[in-house]
């Protein structure tokens, strides 16, 4: 097992560097000029100024040269400076990361809990109106565009009912202590709920079909014949087997969510990585884009390593080689 882990860990740098190289080329080859963005529209600046800015940002060098310089920096852990904000990229990302992690954790945790519960309940009462209704709802939840759902939630819960604040992570009235935590939670509910919707649907469907399939197996009949109650059968046997795909899918979802629930963050004004990335794309802020991509790649690779290991723990049939 530890040989497996070691081998997987050794693959990580290669994977990340490979991704970084591909992304670097893609980002630099795409049309759009960061210098034009920095100077802004309505600009009647002399061309010498533009050239000088281009030189200072290293954009007048060849692509290969720029890539080489970037990789050297990257190896030292230096992600460079943002073209647009004139701040170290590492600081920018670390500054926004907690907000995204909070949103992601809230959304994925609640999605897993709710999705699994509903999936089990639905499988247990398969064929009834509850099951059919839940299936339909899941299909709807999966199909609704996040952006639209977000705006609807804002309109409904923030504006009409006034239950929740409409934007941002905290109100600006300077609450402290427990009040601040409550305030944060109040701001978190809507964006987390909107983000979770799709994941609830996915987890629900996976668990439901996993449990149903398991419940049809011979050993379940044996267990019932032995006299085991419904609850024990369901939770100790069926659910445990149905959880396997959930582990995998959660690992993948972390990668998606970490790259920033961009649309959710935009609609709710949540100051996370997703918005940072979106702004960086519009600004052609190459260092920030590269920094975010590298971080997401690293996180995805590591999380998937963890899920593979977990799989080996949960399912004794799996021998990790």
């Amino acid at each position: 097992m530890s040989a497996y882990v070691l081998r997987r860990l050794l693959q990580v740098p290669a994977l990340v560097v490979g991704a970084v190289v591909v992304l670097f080329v893609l980002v630099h080859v795409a049309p759009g000029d960061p210098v034009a963005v920095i100077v802004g529209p309505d600009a009647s600046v002399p061309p010498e100024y533009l050239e000088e800015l281009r030189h200072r940002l290293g954009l007048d060098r060849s692509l290969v040269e720029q890539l080489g310089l970037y990789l050297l920096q990257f190896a030292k852990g230096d992600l460079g400076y943002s073209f647009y904000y004139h701040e170290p990229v590492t600081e920018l990302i670390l500054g926004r990361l907690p907000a995204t992690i909070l949103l992601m954790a809230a959304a994925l945790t609640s999605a897993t809990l709710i999705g699994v519960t509903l999936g089990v309940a639905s499988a247990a009462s398969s064929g009834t109106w509850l099951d059919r209704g839940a299936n339909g709802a899941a299909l709807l939840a999966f199909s609704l565009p996040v952006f639209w759902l977000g705006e609807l939630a804002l309109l409904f819960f923030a504006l009409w009912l006034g239950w929740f604040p409409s934007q941002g992570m905290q109100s600006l009235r300077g609450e402290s202590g427990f009040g601040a935590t409550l305030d944060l939670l109040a701001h978190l509910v809507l964006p987390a709920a909107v983000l979770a919707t799709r994941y609830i649907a996915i987890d629900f469907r996976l668990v439901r079909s996993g449990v149903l399939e398991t419940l049809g197996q011979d050993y379940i009949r044996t267990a019932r014949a032995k006299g085991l109650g419904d609850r024990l059968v369901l939770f100790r046997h069926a659910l445990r087997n149905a959880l396997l795909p959930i582990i995998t899918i959660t690992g993948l979802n972390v990668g998606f969510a970490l790259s920033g629930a961009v649309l959710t963050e935009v609609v709710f004004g949540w100051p996370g990585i997703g918005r940072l990335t979106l702004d960086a794309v519009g600004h052609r802020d190459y260092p920030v884009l590269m920094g975010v991509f590298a971080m997401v790649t690293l996180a995805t690779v590591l999380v998937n390593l963890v899920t593979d290991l977990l799989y080996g723990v949960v399912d004794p049939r799996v021998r990790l080689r």
Partner: protein
Amino acid sequence: MIRSWVRAAAALAALALVTTVCAGPVAAPAGSPAASAAASATPKKGGTLVAVIGRDPATGNMDITSDTNGFFAFTPVYSSLVEIGPNGQVTPDLAKSWTVSADGKRYEFKLNAAKFHDGRPVTSADVKYTAEEVAGKYAPKFTPSYKLVDRVEAPDASTVVFTLKQPSATFLQSLAHHSIVILPQHIYAGSDPRQNPQNSKPIGSGPFKFKEWVKGDHITLERNADYFKPDVPYFDQVIFRILPDAGSRAIAFQKGDIDTLTGQLVAREQVADLKKIAGVQVNDQDDPPGEELLQFNTTRKPFNDLKVRTAFVSAIDRAAVVERAFFGQGAELPTTHIPKQLKLFHDTTVKLPTRDVAKAGSLLDEAGYPKGANGIRLTVKLAYDQTNDADKRSAEVVRDNLKDAAVQVELQPLDSAVVAKEVYTDANFDMWTVSVTSNGDPELGIARFYTTQSIKVSFGNASRYSNPEIDQAFAQGASTTDLKERQAAYKKVQEILARDLPTLPLADYENIDFARPDIGGVTQSPIGYPYFYIQRLWRK
């Protein structure tokens, strides 16, 4: 066993859902009539104003960028020599008075006794430094004016003199906030002003001091207790929320989470709904008008042919643009190339061709574009900035209109970051729709589309139209302060442009600003970008 508790939970959930759905929308919170009636007319001090911008500014130094969001958020931190009042008149700010020599070339300003936010006094040396080393080199709106300056002198600490190479109608206006703000020399001298770390924590001498900038979330300013003007500002604190989505901004405003919303951040289709808020204050009168401009690329076929341009102009229904692209809100049908709202210079005798599809057809026949076997005369591309809704909708209207004249139009949405190169540097387009501001004066905002020297300039003469008569007329309008002479020059400009049609103004529009009912003192600058005079706002 399982099923009973599952059913109970499901029933509860369903009940909750049904009650929420049936609750229906609660009326949006409104300023109560009683409170408004009791509101005093004298401004009250204190409290926090919450405003909004669309994205993080590029920098806090307004003299090195033309970024609009930075303009909204950081202008209150600085002073300029002069200010533009609500009626377009130039009023004192840092300069308490000024004299202009008889030949119109020498401007002498006497400064108020003001202090920067770090306590050091503002002197003429700061003005001289800012004009020569920062704004004169890097401020996109000031550099054209600075080209007219021969020298800047600071004979004593409270006097600064600008001597121009020639008289200018707009030099005084170009010394206001949208163009140049005064920086502290003791902080910036000896450094590269574009790299100075102070740019993220700006220091000025304005009514508000910079407090904090949480990237992606908000910018906070607090009142400058040592501001050199008496009484203002009234608010203790101003917070600019950063909200990238127009829909979310509108909802936040309706909910009362933000107090003011400038027109530039409002999508046109939301205007009607926002106007319905009880007691809301709407300002669409004092704005510098903007133009939705359709520019033809006159350097290549088919638009190098005047007949074709005239034909296209005859085929387009500009009233439809006003209706469909602007939803009839704050937009008017243009009759010349200078917007109606610039009353001093708009000429009512000049008229652009009205819609006549038959005439368009016959002109195109004459120009060598008869209908082909598939019923189409020619195909052209129409580019626009895909992030601008007004440009997109206007482009769609133009495309639909031209179909009636058997012209096929392919829409070309462009990303903002590529516009400068594709359209202005390389002229890689056929037609281009763009929303532009007039900056309140033909010299400041209209000349740039038609003069030879503005070719290749970003948001300038994309058509590459070059006509010495036009250049001369604009030069004349710029170099005299005599109103009659300026009007004669711009009348000539409008006559020539209505004939040559390098561009077609599709709509003259105004941005519509909103403020909550409980905000007092709502007035607005007419020059450049609309922004609220935050220093004069208070909460009723």
